[in-house]
């Protein structure tokens, strides 16, 4: 009887520990998201620069964290092209095409940059924390390594290893393929600046291992807290955006 009680106690303590670790780690993921996105409704600009000098500029509007509207602003021939992201659903509107058509989150924008890489500004909507480790970086700095696994079918990656520095600031991320074994991309979060009350990364350097380790630099700027009308996030409205 006492033995049984001890087993129950031990199991309960273990379960509580596991639960608290998971809750704690999900809190950490929320902190990471808060660093990457300053609120639920905001806007920012993006500049994508490939190693061969190719460049794209975009303006992004985010609503309720899960809805994004990405508008190409440069070069001129792509200007007005718009990607709408609502939950796991994506549409693209090409100026003049008279209709928005569905695309998948893996659709590429430039080099190895997928539409989801641009439009999705938070991890917690698509991924949950599977594990957390304290590790030492190559420069002997204390880091946390979060293993994120997809929780929705529409998530762009099967698994992500996210490396966090002081105050849970994202430093580096490894993005894995569908079988969870092959590293597709490595991302470095750089250029931390004080933006809307917090230190936030302004540069994301992505190394695309599927394209000869091509490097693409994404620069974020002009963050603003704005509330965008709900109708902007409807596929039928895209043709009316100016």
């Amino acid at each position, binding site marked *: 009887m006492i033995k049984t009680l001890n087993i129950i106690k031990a199991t309960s303590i273990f379960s509580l520990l596991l639960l608290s670790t998971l809750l704690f780690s999900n809190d950490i993921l929320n902190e990471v998201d808060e660093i990457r996105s300053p609120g639920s409704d905001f806007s920012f600009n993006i500049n994508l620069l490939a190693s061969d000098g190719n460049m794209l500029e975009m303006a992004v509007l985010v609503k309720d964290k899960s809805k994004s509207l990405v508008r190409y602003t440069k070069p001129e021939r792509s200007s007005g092209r718009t990607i709408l992201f609502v939950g796991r659903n*994506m549409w693209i509107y090409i100026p*003049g095409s008279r209709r928005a058509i569905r695309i998948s989150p893996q659709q590429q924008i430039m080099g190895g940059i997928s539409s989801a890489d641009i439009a999705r500004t938070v991890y917690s909507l698509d991924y949950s924390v599977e594990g957390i480790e304290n590790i030492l970086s190559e420069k002997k700095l204390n880091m946390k390594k979060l293993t994120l696994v997809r929780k929705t079918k529409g998530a762009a990656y099967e698994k992500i290893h996210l490396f966090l520095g002081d105050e849970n600031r994202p430093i580096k991320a490894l993005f894995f393929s569908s079988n969870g074994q092959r590293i597709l991309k490595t991302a470095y979060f750089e250029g931390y600046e004080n933006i809307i009350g917090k230190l936030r990364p302004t540069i994301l350097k992505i190394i695309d291992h599927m394209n000869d380790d091509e490097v693409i630099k994404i620069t974020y700027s002009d963050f603003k807290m704005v509330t965008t009308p709900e109708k902007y996030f409807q596929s*039928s409205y895209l043709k009316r955006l100016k």
Partner: protein
Amino acid sequence: MKNIYYLCVFFLVIKNDCLYAVESEWSHSFNAISDFRIVNDLYETNPLVTEDAISNKNSNTESSTSRLNLESWNDKTNVSTQIRFKYENNQVDNVNSETEIDEFFGEYEFTDELFIFAGRRNIVLGQSYGINPIDVFSDYSLLDRSLNSSRKRIEYPGQDMLGFENLYDEGSTISGYIAPKISFSNNERDQALLSKSMFLSEFNSDFSILGFIDERSGLGFSFTKPQEKASLFYADVSLREGRDRALIRADTSSSVEGDFLTIEGDQKKLYLESNVGFSYAFHTGGTFNIEYYFNQNGYTNPEWLQIKGLILTNSNNVANGVDIDQSESNLNSLNSYLTYEVLRREYVFMRYFSSFIFDEDSNFETTVFHSLEDGSGSLSVRLEKSLISDLLIGLYLNSNYGNSYDEFKLRANQFQGVAYATYHF
């Protein structure tokens, strides 16, 4: 008169707000595409196509096309215009130029959700890349297939219409328009359409249903659903009243073997046209589409065997010097009847598009439209490269394949090669 009445009502309704619109600040946007193209078409005679049928076809054409898009708007009103200018120098007509107003319409935001519009407009529905069954009013003979997919369905004349679109918060839209045949319009017949498009968030799907009035009225459905992160399933389906083509039967009462009769198809039955597709986006940047297309209007095997038999008989007559004039005339008549986009029932369309097959500034597209009935088809390849930021050069090649009496080998134009340079202003 009735149509003019509708237009008057529309303008009276918005009159007060138009006065406001005139006073409020207008913004404008202007963009243009200009391209220079060298086109080589190879027309061949075959058992169906006689020398006479291809005598007035252009083989080599140099053309210059400009497309202008002008948009003006203020808080409530939007005016859109698209005009195309085409200048062509070919072997037959020498110099030929034309101007087409594709769009010229005004749209007024009646409320935050309700938009009403009037004028010439080009409306496109559906997701399909090959043949789109719910693009119900489009005339495929007006499409320039040598244009890339972002331009092909845009550079197309719109209809003169009066319509509305109402958006709902949950993501659905109800829209409709009437496009009557009136003297000053470019509408060839009375047409109207009413559709409801829904975003089914719980299924992550888009679903549209439409009803339309035309010579062959009917219903249409469109469905799109992403599967996992990289693939999409989609279907566009229409059900239309009446068969779109005449049946062709041998005239057994005629003394000339090879003479034929045309019989109108069943005009009461509903005919199904459907396109079911799947697309996959690769990590490497490519996208693959595969679509299965079924058209119940297409000729069945017994119907096609009759037609094939008539082609064979008449071409043998010509070759053997029997009733030459009548047999050539029969072949030309048959050729003029067989101008539909597809003649048979079942096809597969495949497309692979990669935006950076050689480098970031280039893209590659290949498509195959393949008949499951006789194994013939059409294969195309396109390469495009940006030389500088707004200058694009491209090469498009299209060729038909199959055996001599197969559908795609019975067409006059067996090959098309187009080299082009496009500048975006």
